[in-house]
């Protein structure tokens, strides 16, 4: 199953609104909470890990990877992506402000790897990052999902 895991346009929110980093994580995780693939507890864990370990989840300029450890709060391994209309600060010395959030939720240490590799390959290309940040419409989200899933 892990190999067939894909991201869908429903999990890609474009130009979302958030006023601070905690809200940004919540908003980005919404599609996964609403479809019962993660519980609210997982969202709380993602926020708590930033509070505990610092804003290290901001792994590139403007890009935060919201995640927590695999746990019972993850019902299904899944990812979501959100771009923000207005960037928010996470407190990262190097990479603030953040306008792109990737949420990673995994049921195990390995269940997410195949789709994560596809997302990483997508993020490796700075043209894709530019395209994602400019994207606005549902059609744009579909194209981005196809590009990620295509590998």
């Amino acid at each position, binding site marked *: 199953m892990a190999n067939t895991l894909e991201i869908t346009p429903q999990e890609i929110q474009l130009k979302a609104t958030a006023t601070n980093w905690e809200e940004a994580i919540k908003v980005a995780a919404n599609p996964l909470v609403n479809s019962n693939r993660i519980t609210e507890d997982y969202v709380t864990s993602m926020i708590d*890990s930033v509070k505990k370990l610092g804003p*290290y*989840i901001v*792994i*590139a300029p403007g890009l935060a990877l919201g995640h927590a*450890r695999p746990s019972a709060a993850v019902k299904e391994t899944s990812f979501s992506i959100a771009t923000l209309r207005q960037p928010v600060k996470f407190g*990262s*010395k*190097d990479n603030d402000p953040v306008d792109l959030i990737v949420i990673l939720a995994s049921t195990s240490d390995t269940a997410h790897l195949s789709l994560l*590799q596809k997302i990483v390959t997508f993020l490796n290309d700075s043209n894709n990052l530019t395209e994602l940040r400019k994207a606005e419409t549902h059609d744009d989200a579909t194209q981005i999902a196809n590009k990620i899933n295509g590998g």
Partner: protein
Amino acid sequence: MKIVAVCGLSVGSSVIAKMNIESILSEEKRDDIDVDTVDLGSITSAPADIYVTTRELFEGFPDEDRDKTIVLTNFVDKNDIKAHLDPKLQELEK
């Protein structure tokens, strides 16, 4: 040789670092180097020739491991990672 990517939980950012470092090493045809991930709390049980981490987590690194650590600000830009990694590899292989 062994490279260990260190992050807070060892499921997210360090895995991304590992994927990109493996991809760079593969391009450089360096199949003699292994890449692993570990969380910051387990670093003493994961000996390495090179550690890779973020600025925030570097502040919590054991003193004795700091010299062999590369601090990355961008985990998805392979050119940037390569620019940090290659000099460190050369230094170790002198």
